[in-house]
């Protein structure tokens, strides 16, 4: 890494955590209950506690990650659990208004 220069903010952030010890420190970070920060990137926060490394806007590549159940606690995984989620929203970046949640908390 010492011969490479980071060009943008995301690369600079990654550079800050190049040693294995630092990576371990960073990823073990605790966040507010219900948030996922450690699944590179997290859903709410990136592994550095910021927003700089997240996909933004999230709608632009939502299915790229949801399909692979990357954050199954926050985004319905369409691989196994909720295959029909987002069925009517072919392009999330255009049809995001139709996005709905899965409400598993019925009484």
């Amino acid at each position, binding site marked *: 890494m010492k011969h490479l220069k980071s060009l943008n903010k995301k690369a600079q952030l990654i550079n800050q955590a190049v040693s294995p010890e630092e990576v371990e420190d960073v*990823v*073990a970070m*605790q*966040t*507010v*209950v*219900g*948030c*996922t*920060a*450690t*699944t*590179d990137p997290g*859903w*709410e*926060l990136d*592994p550095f506690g*910021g*927003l*700089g490394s*997240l996909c*933004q*806007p*999230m*709608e*632009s590549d939502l299915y790229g990650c949801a399909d*692979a*159940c*990357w*954050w*199954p*606690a*926050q*985004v*319905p*995984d369409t*691989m*196994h*659990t909720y295959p029909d*989620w987002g069925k009517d929203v072919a392009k999330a*970046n255009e049809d*995001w*208004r*139709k*996005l*709905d*949640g*899965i*409400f*598993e*908390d*019925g*009484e």
Partner: protein
Amino acid sequence: MAPTNKSTRRTLIGSGVLLLAGLASASVQADDAKQIIRDRCLACHTESGDASAPNFSRISEQRKTPEGWLFTINRMINLRGLQISDDEKREVVRYLADTQGLAPSEAAPFRYLLEQDTNLVEEGVDQALAETCARCHSAARFGLQRRTTEEWQLLVNFHMGQFPTTEFHSLARDRKWYEIAHDEVAVQLGEQYPLLTPAWDNWKQAVKSDLDGRWRVTGFVPGKGEYDAWMTTSKADGGRYNLSLEGQYADGSPLSGSGKATVYTGYEWRASITIDGVKMRQVMAADAKGMSMNGRMFLASEREIGGVMSALKDTKAPAVVAVMPSYLRKGESTALTIIGQNLDGDIDLGPGVKVEKVLERSDDRIHLMARATGDEGTQSVQVGAAELASGLAVYGELARVEVTPQNAVARIGGMSKMPKVRVAYRAVGYSAGADGKPGTEDDLRLGYMPAEWSIKPADEMAAEEKDAEFAGTIDAAGIFTPGDDGPNPKRKMMANNVGRLAVVASVKDAGEAVEGDGSLLVSVPDFVRRVLD
């Protein structure tokens, strides 16, 4: 209990069970629930052992809270195609929470999750458990379960089968995740949270108290303020309770509501109540003698918006339950309200505190003017034979303001089908204590104080991204409302209205403003709403 729905009735008649209305008993209820499990669950689960004390595979090896069982059954409906009516579901949840629940001491460390008070960072989570489990969901979710080691291992297998990319996440792909999770972490969970515990054995045998009666209640509703009220509870059919709540907010406006409650596991109070047209829920735990309950009441439609709630049973004995406000600045005549029950006799607010005038007095409420001239510190508040230790904090100067919650997440919404997730804030005041330094252990907690609220960017990067401009607003009552969801063309890269903010409370004390702040993350929606995060 008499069957409450058609399908249950059919089942019971079909199995030859004769029920007479009015002959309600816990054992009939349990038989009912066991039969529902047989009818609904045995397509996949198996039954073994004595019919009167059956073992249902995967079910009998676990203990959970009422919410935990509801979560499991909902998951069976959503993921496994379970067909069950709402009434049957309630019946099974109650049976399982009663017979395979958690003892009060087992649930105690994680009550915040049951109370849906989740704007906090969990501390002290074992590293292996944090890396394996709590990196996606709360540590309380599994901390509120008890299983055999084999059952914990099957839970690992469930995750592997249901969410196979778990192995490829960070903290998984760099190690033998499955082997570690199955052979080490599940074993650790089996030791830390085992199925069989002395605490549960003892609680099962303990005599459970009825929770009917009159309760003196105090609490807080965001946007409305602190309140005091009387809650009347009476037993209804099916082991449920009817309840009513009548009282007033600190500004004098009335509060009135009624609803129904269920008590699970002998101490877990769960109520649905409509207060002045707004549906709310109560989650409280009763103490072992059924004399007091503590927990939280929140909006049924927005579980993040709620506040603490305490109830003390009226046993005709005098009691002081609260002083509002709970602080008194030295040298200033201040109006205080003592909240209690069966109050009779002389009022004593502690050495150096003078009751200047009693403005209004009844047996459950005393409104008075007081002035403190003595030392700083907490005072016990006495009315006749009733005493509330540390009921009033006398202070010289406000030194520090703490914003609560200290760490919170709001979620954008409102433009798609996902609702906005708001955050309700309060400010807690402290004086510096004997050492004169704020932020040290001897700081004197004064209580919740009225504040002016504002937001600012959390740091330089948040300022550069104009997070405070886009991510939302906070109102005079301390309720933060996040921005709309969807890509925002006005932001760089069409970013969402997410942001990292500092929420600032400014509290006036003798003309001087003292500020404190909390950390707020305004995030994207959580598309999977579960019973427990």
